């Protein structure tokens, strides 16, 4: 059924269709509408599961950990400060190999306090061992939820999944969204059947102390599984396309990249703006396309190299920064091409921090200003009294 609904409602509808057994809820802008919608579904008997209003995000993550360990499909959602507060538990969940799904309504991190969108929150947990997917629009964000459970609950994967959707920009935007039937989702996403869980029928001990002679292998296995997850993520997206007729890419997606000489690289809702910008540039004869990173973890190095084989210049436009190093996506994209036969020039631009607007004109300026150059760590659209030049104090080569 096609509805014109808020992004948060679209997510709540799809979460409901995934039949979660336990939901832990704690409010934080801009995710709150998701848990509010879920609580109404529960109150109206549409969602049959345990809905807990917990005492903090730390509590929320711990509750979904316990529920999953006991064999239940569990769900929570958070952002920014809440994601950080859960940080400890996120590592615990991946270490315990529990396929929990959490939606992160990406938001900037305090201090100073800012409730608007950027990707810095997700970046703080990029090493936590979670699969991390970024959604471009509300339909994709909603559809990611059954996909995420399917990926995580795969008996060869057993990993938690963080679904990232831009706070306010997606969560609070009203877009037409296709909500599938319960039966369609049930066919696509069967019941969760873990091989080991807390039960008196098979009393096992979980969460043990691992001394130096035991710990390292668990990390190696996480590394291995992230490599294995690459093909599972692709297959899950393909199966979704077969079943529901919608596809947004697997690990990555491309837009007008086939004959592109230059390409934007980005994640999340920015892709939508970039598509309009690229269409305009193409109309003017520019050979430009987009590389959309959909799976940030595992990072799809191989796919990126493959689709950029003939692209000369990559323009990374991102909403996060690793202080003391450089733009997060900028650095990871550069590293993907290290020692490769084909090494495109990679320029990196940081924009949209703390929810600052990204008008198409900005992206066109970036496109024009970086032609034939390698621009590194460019903070864009800052106040001129703070940051001199068109791209702040970025280093410019060429």
């Amino acid at each position, binding site marked *: 059924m096609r509805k014109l609904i808020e992004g948060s409602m679209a997510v709540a509808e799809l979460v409901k269709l995934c039949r979660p*057994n*336990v939901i*832990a809820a704690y409010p934080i802008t801009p995710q709150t509408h998701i848990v509010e919608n879920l609580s109404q579904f529960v109150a109206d008997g549409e969602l*049959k*599961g*345990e809905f*807990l*209003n*917990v*005492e*903090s995000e*730390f*509590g929320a993550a*711990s*509750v*979904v*950990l*316990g*529920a*999953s*360990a*006991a*064999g*239940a499909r*569990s769900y929570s959602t958070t952002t920014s400060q809440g994601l950080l507060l859960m940080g*400890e*538990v996120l590592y*615990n969940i991946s270490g*315990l190999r529990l396929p929990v799904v959490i939606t992160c309504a990406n938001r900037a991190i305090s201090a100073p306090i800012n409730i608007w969108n950027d990707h810095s929150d997700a970046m703080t947990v990029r090493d936590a061992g979670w699969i991390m997917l970024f959604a471009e629009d509300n339909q994709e964000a909603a559809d990611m939820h059954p996909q995420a459970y399917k990926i995580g609950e795969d008996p060869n994967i057993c990993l938690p999944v963080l679904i990232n959707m831009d706070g306010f920009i997606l969560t609070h935007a009203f877009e037409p969204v296709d909500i599938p039937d319960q039966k369609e989702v049930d066919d696509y996403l069967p019941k969760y059947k873990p091989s080991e869980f*807390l*039960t*008196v*029928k*098979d*009393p*096992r*001990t*979980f*969460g*043990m*102390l*691992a*001394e130096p002679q*035991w710990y390292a292998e668990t990390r190696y296995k996480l590394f291995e599984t992230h490599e294995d997850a690459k093909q599972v993520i692709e297959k899950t997206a393909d199966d979704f396309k077969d079943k529901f007729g919608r596809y947004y890419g697997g690990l990555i997606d491309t837009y007008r990249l086939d004959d592109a000489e230059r390409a934007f690289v980005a994640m999340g809702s920015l892709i939508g703006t970039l598509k309009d910008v690229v269409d305009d540039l193409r109309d003017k004869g520019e050979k430009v396309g987009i590389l959309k990173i959909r799976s940030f973890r595992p990072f799809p190095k191989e796919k990126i190299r493959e689709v950029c084989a003939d692209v000369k210049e990559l323009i990374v436009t991102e909403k996060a920064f690793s202080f003391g190093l450089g733009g997060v996506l900028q650095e990871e994209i550069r590293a993907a091409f290290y020692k490769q036969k084909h090494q495109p020039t990679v320029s990196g631009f940081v924009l949209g921090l703390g929810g600052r607007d990204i008008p198409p004109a900005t992206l066109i300026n970036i496109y024009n200003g970086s032609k034939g150059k390698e621009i590194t760590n460019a903070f864009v659209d800052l106040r001129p009294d703070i940051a001199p030049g068109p791209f702040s104090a970025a280093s410019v080569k060429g």
Partner: protein
Amino acid sequence: MSETTKTKKIKPPITESLLTCGHRACSGCGESLGAKLVMDAAGPNNIVTTATGCLEVFSTPYPESAWRMPWIHSLFENSAAVAAGIESALKALGREDEANVIAQGGDGGTADIGIGCLSGMLERGHNILYVCYDNEAYMNTGVQRSGLTPYDARTSTSPPGTESWGNQHQKKNLLEIAAAHNIPYAATASVGYPSDLMSKVKKALKIKGPKFLMVHVPCPLGWAYKTELTIEIAKIAVMTGLFPIVEMEYNKVTRVRKVGKNRRPVEDYLKLQGRFRHVMTEAGKIELEKIRLIAQANIDKYGLE
């Protein structure tokens, strides 16, 4: 073999404990004794969470686990929240009759870092028994002061010196904090009185809703006493009034263990433990009096006379 004047009552064979041998607790550890009694009173149909701490570390160094029921350790401060998740899962999956859920934690993991999750669990009314093992310090990390460390106790972060008599704060009343959530059952117990402890566990598990049990568990290493005195010291603590044995239902005291003519002076308790050695001196007389007042206040408050 001795003669008996009564008819011999045949006792059932000893069954293997649910917290079995081979764990790495210190010799004479009150907490391992407490946990053993709790588990055996509870029985095998329990899913148990435990916070980081001595109990978790000495019982589960991979691949050795002393637990014989389904058990999970997550983090230091979330035993109650993980248990809440498990209890909710059992409800959602129609498995409520399979097992009870017991959450465990030490004094640090419950009263300090874990108090948020504990409060949330109690407030939401989960059907969980929370057992706090109070050995009065962060023992596993080397005896640091916690919110339940008693007045004047030496710990590695509250040592006595020229400027200090040791821990300068009184124990948080965790029993009443838990009871204030208006839960059906909150009680203290001691390994000094094993039968009382076990019967309280059995009683609690028959009640539906959140239950809280705080067990006093002496620590030979942290309290600095000879290992064989664990039970004796636990008993004397109760008989001085320094660790009141109280039951509360819906935030009202319903039963206490009176000390009456068995009352012991606080000196009898303190003199057995190295952590109070500095108090048992000529210079420490005023501190001793302060501790007497604390004991008296407990006796007055709960009517333990």
